[in-house]
């Protein structure tokens, strides 16, 4: 290649590199201290920083099969469908440069740069957001089923010593609770005995008597206290795991009143310094589900506190009006992901397309997130977090500063070594090294690679290794000069003889880096990318650029008899 073209190629490469690295304005949507989103224009070099430098949250999600086994192909399908929903949610969350992608067949990876509240991010993607409205039971069906339930629990050997313990002490608070509840002023708060008798009077007095009798001894029934409204039962917080264990058993579930489910609530109540959690017996079939939801938004209500208002689609509204019209006077449980939200309100008349979910004591941020997930739709399966990484912004910044310092110092050391040892030729190599740094960074920016802390380390290392090709060539030139060859021939021969070694050694490193890229995760991938970019840049600079420098020098000082090397 003529010298002119060589020089032009190098200048061209430099221009392209500068173009790739030129700082540009980027519009970013960030969450401010107030929790609201706003656009911010930042001017920076277009090098993408990984989460370990930027700070932020990384989540890997997989299908939760802890409750039931799910075959692999079903999982794959579910992940594909869930990916869309998760993406919509994260986009709705609004932080720019968030990443949602599939990893392998059965995982979804979410990366939110700059997110300071990893717990919130986790909730946002993990929540299945399956919304349904179910009518609670008013017929005392559970009380009638209690003997059977107790029997089943006994047969299945589910009742352990702890359950027996609770059954013995259950008697006293039962009465106390009863008193407390009846003294409560709300008309709907009815104590256990009364409801049981009411229903008994209506239906079957013998069965009710049985249920009352078994109340004291049965492992299942002893856990329950009649709550403040029909179909509501209080369970002491300490007994909740036991009850959940019972309810997880298929035989127990089968013994529940037909067409009914027992669902825990979100709220806890304190009575006499003891905490109780509410459970509700609801119809198995919902009157309507979140599928018909068209819009949800957070709001503050003077009476109910933080709420999420929702509207239903036209069809959903029609159904909802019909169904609620049939159930006037009944209670409607709003169930989100298998938990009753707040206390079921009474249906006072047919409800149309609008409704609201009260958030209890929770804040506006929670309401925002709930509205967001409801809008994005429910996940087809329950997901669980398999892996999380969250890095605070200060640690990331610290890593950048330290990485930068290590880079500068290693460059300085290498420059000194090369200059001291090779003098003028060392200077040419340093010129090549400067272009090496430029080209490598430009390649990273150009390919939109992500810079991570191991990536910076790889870059620092590659600076040390980049001069290896130069060293090989220079040593060859020295040998040729030692054999009495002229400067021009020695340079030619030096470059030519060093080639096989340079190619072989670099190819083997590229192969290793490629394997790393294939098998590595985030930060390690960043390392592999920098290494590969670095090797190519070092091949270009040491073989092509430094050679051109030599040719330029030879042209200027024609007939040079000595070479400073």
């Amino acid at each position, binding site marked *: 290649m003529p010298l002119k073209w060589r020089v032009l190629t190098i200048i061209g490469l430099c221009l392209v590199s500068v173009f790739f690295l030129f700082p540009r304005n980027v519009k970013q949507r960030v969450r401010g201290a107030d929790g609201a989103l706003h656009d911010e224009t930042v001017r920076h070099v277009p090098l993408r920083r990984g989460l370990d430098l930027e700070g932020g949250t990384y989540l890997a999600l997989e299908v939760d099969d802890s409750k039931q086994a799910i075959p692999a192909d079903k999982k794959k399908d579910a992940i594909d469908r869930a990916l869309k929903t998760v993406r919509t949610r994260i986009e709705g969350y609004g932080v720019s440069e968030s990443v949602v992608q599939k990893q392998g067949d059965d995982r979804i990876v979410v990366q939110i740069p700059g997110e300071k509240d990893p717990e919130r991010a986790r909730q946002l993607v993990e929540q299945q957001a399956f919304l349904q409205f179910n009518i609670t039971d008013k017929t005392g069906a559970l009380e009638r089923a209690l003997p059977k339930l107790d029997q089943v629990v006994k047969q299945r050997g589910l009742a352990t010593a702890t359950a027996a313990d609770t059954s013995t002490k259950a008697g006293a608070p039962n009465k106390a609770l009863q008193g407390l509840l009846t003294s409560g002023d709300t008309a709907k708060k009815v104590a256990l005995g009364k409801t049981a008798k009411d229903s008994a009077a209506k239906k079957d007095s013998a069965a009710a008597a049985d249920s009352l009798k078994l109340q004291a001894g049965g492992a299942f029934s002893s856990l329950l206290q009649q709550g403040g409204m029909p179909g509501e039962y209080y369970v002491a917080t300490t007994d909740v795991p036991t009850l959940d264990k019972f309810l997880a058993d298929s035989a127990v579930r089968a013994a529940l009143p037909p067409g009914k489910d027992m669902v825990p609530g979100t709220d806890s109540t304190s009575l006499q310094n003891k905490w109780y959690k509410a459970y509700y017996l609801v119809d198995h079939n919902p009157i309507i589900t979140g599928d018909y939801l068209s819009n949800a938004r957070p709001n503050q209500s003077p009476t109910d506190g933080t709420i999420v208002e929702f509207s239903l689609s036209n069809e959903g509204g029609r159904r909802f009006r019909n169904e609620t019209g049939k159930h006037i006077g009944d209670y409607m449980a709003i169930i989100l992901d298998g938990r009753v939200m707040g206390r079921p309100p009474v249906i006072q008349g047919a409800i149309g397309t609008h409704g609201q979910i009260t958030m209890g004591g929770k804040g506006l941020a929670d309401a925002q997130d709930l509205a967001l997930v409801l809008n994005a739709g429910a996940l087809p399966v329950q997901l669980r977090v398999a892996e999380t*990484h969250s890095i605070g912004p200060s640690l990331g910044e610290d890593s950048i500063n330290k990485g930068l310092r*290590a880079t500068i110092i290693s460059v300085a050391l290498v420059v000194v070594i090369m200059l001291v040892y090779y003098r003028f030729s060392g200077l040419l190599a340093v010129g090549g090294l400067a272009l090496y740094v430029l080209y490598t960074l430009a390649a990273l920016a150009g390919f939109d690679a992500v810079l991570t802390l191991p990536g*910076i380390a790889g870059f620092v*290392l590659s600076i040390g290794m980049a001069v290896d090709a130069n060293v090989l060539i220079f040593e060859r030139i020295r040998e040729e000069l030692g054999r009495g060859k002229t400067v021009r021939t020695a340079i030619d021969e030096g470059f030519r003889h060093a080639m096989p070694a340079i190619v072989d050694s670099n*190819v083997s490193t590229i192969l*290793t880096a490629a394997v790393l890229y294939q098998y*590595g995760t985030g930060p*390690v991938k960043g390392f592999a990318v920098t290494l590969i970019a670095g090797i190519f840049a070092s091949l270009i600079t040491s073989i092509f650029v430094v050679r051109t420098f030599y040719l330029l020098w030879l042209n200027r000082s024609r007939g040079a008899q000595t070479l400073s090397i």
Partner: protein
Amino acid sequence: MLRILHDTKFDFISHWKSAAIGTIAFIVLGFILLGVHAARHNGQALNQSVEFTGGTVVQLTFENPPSADAVRNAVDQAGFSGAEVTTFGDSRNYLIKVQPQEGVKAAANADSVGAHIVQVMTQRIPGNQATVARAESVGPRVGSELKTRAMMAILLSFAVTLIYLAFRFEWRFGVAAVIASAHDILTTLAFLAMMRLEISLTVVAAILTVIGYSLNDTIIIFDRVRENLKKQRKESLYEVLNRSINETLPRSVLTHATVFAATLALLIFAGEVIRPFSWVMAFGVFTGTFSSIYVAGAILLWIEHKWPRATGAETKGTAKALAEGRRREQPAATAGSR
């Protein structure tokens, strides 16, 4: 012209016995230590990061250095009494490692573990604000998966380089180079055991880089051997090896100097997070240099001795035979090297 170690005539190979004893002693010592660690840490011979074991790790940064006992107590009180509590870099940073609890929720806990500990800390150590600098959590299944991937990466990079070497050099060189790489992995493991460094994915990347780097070195020397063999001198492989090592010595010294300078910069200035990586790299410069001379070179000689080329008894083991054998076996490679 500044020259170091120019035109040297060291007989490197003659020291192979003491070199072998030295390196085997180092590796054995390392593996005895691994055994000791395994006995002490419930069968965990290597100090693996949560990426591989599954579990949760939280890095807390305090405004002022707290006492180690106070942190330990707070962690215990927060309900993580099995946790491993260590300082991280300086005394203002603490690393709390919680092994996965039985059940599947481990992964979800990373952030709550951090938040919970911070809450307890603020109560117990008032006026010394602690912040969660980093929290990571890995489910056990992901952990074992990552472990498999790391092993796969190491094996695959072995296979790939072996194939490349077989293509560029003849098989004797390839086998010698791969055994040298295996040696590097063993010494690095011994080094990891001695330093009790935490093995993370980043450290695996460092090990692979060390292998690549050591292979570089081996290839440079082998390339010179290949070239010297072609010159058809009546030298034994032993002499050719020694000469090639001596001829490439200035290059080796200089390249190792620059790479070591870069690793030193990393080790001293790049901070705690990347330090295990830096240590492995720093060690790699030494083991890589050593193995290309004493492992790769010695094994090449041994293979040559054990399976001499079938080119005729009179030229057995000589440079000429090697060169001719090579040319016959790999004509394409010779052409390709130009």
